[in-house]
């Protein structure tokens, strides 16, 4: 909706998906639309993340690229050549599966060598590449182990080595970190990103974890209900969400729906359904929005501060709750008209902690440039 496929202007797209649709028959009867005319161009050597809630179609899209599903309609191109209908074993694409899918009857080295063996790579070259791949994922010397003897993190690395040893053009990763504990997941995120840089292979990564997506990706495609809601760099997605769904899915936000009440060339005033009026600087690309247009506004909690600055707008509110989360305080307040408002108070910034007790009045200040304006969803 908010996103149109970028025109191929000399940019190298390794994978191109054109107007792809896919529906499944639901077990309870009826039809579930997994993909609804999705177009997506994936650049060479980029780390692209498909991000969305479960059932948004991200896994279906990934499986279609890998060859495990076919689109009902639409095109799929690898390096400009159609690969639609090609079986998985004829695609120079490898997958790291969610449950790793390591062969239990083969050793770690045999698992990694599998792709080379079926491709008929000679023994000497095979052994060299297997050793190099295991070394790359930090499992040098573990080749003789059985996969079942390894920890979850190590199995993950074997699955990774087994895929990259084949030097695929594209590596697909289906929520590979979801089974790992938080600390391991964070270190694997960095390792994966480094590995991708080192190899220069395109990574297409599926996750429902926004933090994972923001940490690793060059670009993120946010998906919902079988469509791509927004495609862009992590900061773009976070700072300038295309619609209410993206704003709500990524990070914590204050989301308000309202209408443009007054505007001039420079500033806007939006009266929100929740009973507050927000004053803001007009952003690029909002010229089409005239007075009376329905809009959604996102105001990130970290932009709300307790102290006024130059060009800030004050909001009076009453604190309802403040939650201590280590470096920050999450403050939930409510304006006189009943609109909820979340603020993030960074504790290290002040010498003394202000009184943020429930019931205390507070004035929150936001920079006039902070609110982000989005055209209202047709659905809402």
């Amino acid at each position: 909706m908010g996103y149109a496929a970028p025109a191929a202007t000399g940019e190298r797209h390794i994978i191109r998906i054109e107007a792809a649709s896919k529906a499944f028959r639901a077990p309870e009867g009826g039809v579930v639309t997994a993909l609804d005319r999705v177009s997506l161009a994936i650049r060479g050597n980029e780390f692209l993340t498909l991000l969305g809630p479960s059932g948004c179609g991200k896994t279906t899209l990934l499986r279609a690229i890998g060859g495990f599903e076919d689109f009902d309609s639409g095109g799929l191109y690898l390096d400009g050549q159609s690969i639609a209908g090609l079986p998985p074993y004829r695609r120079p694409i490898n997958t790291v599966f969610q449950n790793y899918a390591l062969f239990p009857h083969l050793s770690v080295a045999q698992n990694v060598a599998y792709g080379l063996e079926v491709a008929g790579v000679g023994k000497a070259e095979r052994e060299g590449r297997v050793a190099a791949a295991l070394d790359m994922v930090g499992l040098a010397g573990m080749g003789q182990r059985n996969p079942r003897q390894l920890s979850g993190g190590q199995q993950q690395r074997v699955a990774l080595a087994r895929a990259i040893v084949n030097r695929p053009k594209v590596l697909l990763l289906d929520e590979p970190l979801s089974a790992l504990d938080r600390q391991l997941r964070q270190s694997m995120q960095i390792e994966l990103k480094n590995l991708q840089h080192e190899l220069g292979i395109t990574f297409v990564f599926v996750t429902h974890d926004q933090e994972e997506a923001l940490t690793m990706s060059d670009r993120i495609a946010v998906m919902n209900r079988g469509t791509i809601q927004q495609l862009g760099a992590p900061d773009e997605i976070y700072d300038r969400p295309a619609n209410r769904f993206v704003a709500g899915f990524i990070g914590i936000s204050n989301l308000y729906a309202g209408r443009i009440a007054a505007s001039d060339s420079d500033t806007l005033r939006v009266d929100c359904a929740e009973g507050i009026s927000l004053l803001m600087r007009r952003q690029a690309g909002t010229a089409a929005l005239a007075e009376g247009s329905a809009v959604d506004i996102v105001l990130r909690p970290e932009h709300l501060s307790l102290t006024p600055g130059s060009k800030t707008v004050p909001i009076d509110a009453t604190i309802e709750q403040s939650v201590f989360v280590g470096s920050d305080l999450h403050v939930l307040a409510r304006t006189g008209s009943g609109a909820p408002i979340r603020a993030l108070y960074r504790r290290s910034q002040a010498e003394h902690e202000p009184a943020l007790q429930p019931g205390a009045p507070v004035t929150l200040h936001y920079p006039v440039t902070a609110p982000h304006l989005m055209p209202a969803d047709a659905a809402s």
Partner: protein
Amino acid sequence: MSIAAISAPVEHASQAARRRRNLALMLAPITLLLGIFFVVPLGIMALYSVLTPGLYGGVEWSFYPYSYGRVLGAPLGAGEVFDPVYLEILLRSLKMAFLTVLLTLLISYPAAFWVSGLSPARRNLAMFLITLPFFANLLIRIYAWMLILRPSGVINTVLKELGLIDKPMMMIFSEGAVVIGLVYVLLPFMFLPVYASVERLDRSLVQASADLGATPLQTFRRVILPLTLPGIIGGSIIVFIPALGNFVVASLLGGAKVLMFGNIITQQFLQARNWPFGAALAMMVMATVLVMLFIYVFKVMRSDQRTAGGR
């Protein structure tokens, strides 16, 4: 404090004793059953096989090694020549048992994949249908096959009516008929273990194999077959052994023409009344099966060691 320190290990010891007693109690029935109804009769058989045959059945209590000589076709004494008839029957029985194993496997393996892909309700129905023949008596089921295969049976009648043949085909009383009967009777014994291993096969491994570039044939050979092999081998053993020893199917569908080893043994005990010879034949079958089992166990242990890696 001191009481606890003393009583704890005592408690521990009594717990261990209780566990041992419970284990002994639980294993007692099966030990008793196998002891009385398996080990003792087997011992009697082994003993009888080296005793002198009595004139009207039974045995005389003197050592007599010639029953084994006869089984192996070795000349007994003056005037007798090498006659490998029993070895031939053993070989034929082995051949038919192997054929039975092969056919039940060829039928069960694809069927197991098909059934494991069904919805749970249909899967349960399929399993019920597969075990359904057990509810009818074995003899009745074999008689049904006689009605199907005999010259005036269902197949010949239909083919003649259709004008495809003018003389009835002689299907019954042949090795083929016996194998058909054995396959029919033993099919569930192959299907169930094969199905269990196919069901357990993680389908994501098949996808991973395809993803890594393996053609369907390579995936079958390198992933599906090795991972379902335990079921195939288990099914093969529990089909092979009864197929080799079966005499009901052979006597009904094979008639007097197709003798299997089980028939010879039955004859020796019931008609020829040469118990020691029958016992020697039975020991021969058992030895053959045991040798095959040992080879199998040895191979499986070796492949287990291989997959276990450096453990």
